[in-house]
């Protein structure tokens, strides 16, 4: 059986395209039958955002982009429709815009405990569909325990920020690749896919990566 391709995904918990991209990538995996080992890498879209941002997502987008709140609401309605096509029920009326660095720290703890994928899904659903506040410690404790993490370990890790260097390392690695936006996929350390692309694009990228892997293996066999 072939060794899984490695897939590193830079994303943020409060990135609507990241959840859409997650579903499309999952569709691609099902369609292709490809085996992959996924690691979620940290990317902070808005690290200057306070934990308790005083406003709605429309307020935030309006201020950030310099557009009217009506335009911001229209943009969110559009992405909500796209999310619905992927089976996601975005509820921006109840989204809590916040700082996500603690969520990223928790994702690194989850990675060490083997439940990163489960936590990523839990956090995205909590943020976009369930109106949960993913910037607060006690909310993160609840969400982390939902996927099997230990509550006391979560509290301790988020208190002493033992995973903050790992978060910053991901951010630095992304910057070294030139990543400016998310989601961003790095396959086998060689192929880059930017944005929430169609499943067909992801299937093609996986096939290309597999072909490169096979060619490298064949070459190594010839020269060995």
């Amino acid at each position, binding site marked *: 059986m072939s060794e899984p391709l490695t897939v590193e995904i830079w994303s943020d918990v409060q990135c609507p395209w990241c959840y859409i991209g997650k579903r499309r990538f999952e569709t691609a995996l099902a369609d292709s039958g490809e085996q992959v080992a996924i690691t979620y890498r940290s990317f902070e879209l808005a690290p200057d955002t306070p934990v308790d941002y005083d406003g709605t997502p429309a307020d935030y987008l309006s201020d950030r982009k310099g557009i009217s709140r009506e335009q911001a609401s229209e943009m969110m309605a559009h992405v909500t429709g796209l999310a619905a096509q992927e089976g996601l029920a975005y509820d921006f009326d109840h989204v809590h815009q916040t700082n996500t660095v603690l969520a990223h720290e928790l994702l690194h703890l989850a990675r060490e405990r083997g439940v990163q994928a489960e936590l990523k899904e839990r956090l995205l659903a909590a943020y976009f569909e369930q109106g949960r506040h993913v910037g607060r410690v006690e909310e993160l404790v609840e969400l982390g325990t939902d996927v099997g993490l230990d509550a006391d370990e979560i509290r301790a890790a988020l208190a002493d920020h033992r995973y903050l260097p790992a978060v910053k*390392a991901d951010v630095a690695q992304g910057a070294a690749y*030139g990543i*400016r936006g998310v989601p961003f996929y790095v396959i086998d350390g060689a192929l880059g896919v*930017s*944005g929430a692309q169609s499943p067909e694009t992801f299937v093609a990228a996986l096939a290309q990566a597999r072909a490169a892997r096979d060619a490298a293996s064949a070459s190594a066999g010839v020269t060995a």
Partner: protein
Amino acid sequence: MTVSSGDDGSTVTGVAEEPSITMSAPSPLTFVTAVGDADVETGSCIDGVCAVDPPR
């Protein structure tokens, strides 16, 4: 499929000129361009702002 090593019309344009102070410089990525149904809207989030990519 079409493969480019630069800007594919989406959001990422290449490899940073300077490596991070904490990470070794990665190998340059080969960027994969979109294929398939052009009607599928794609997008990403940059600097806290999320938007649909321009049509292909």
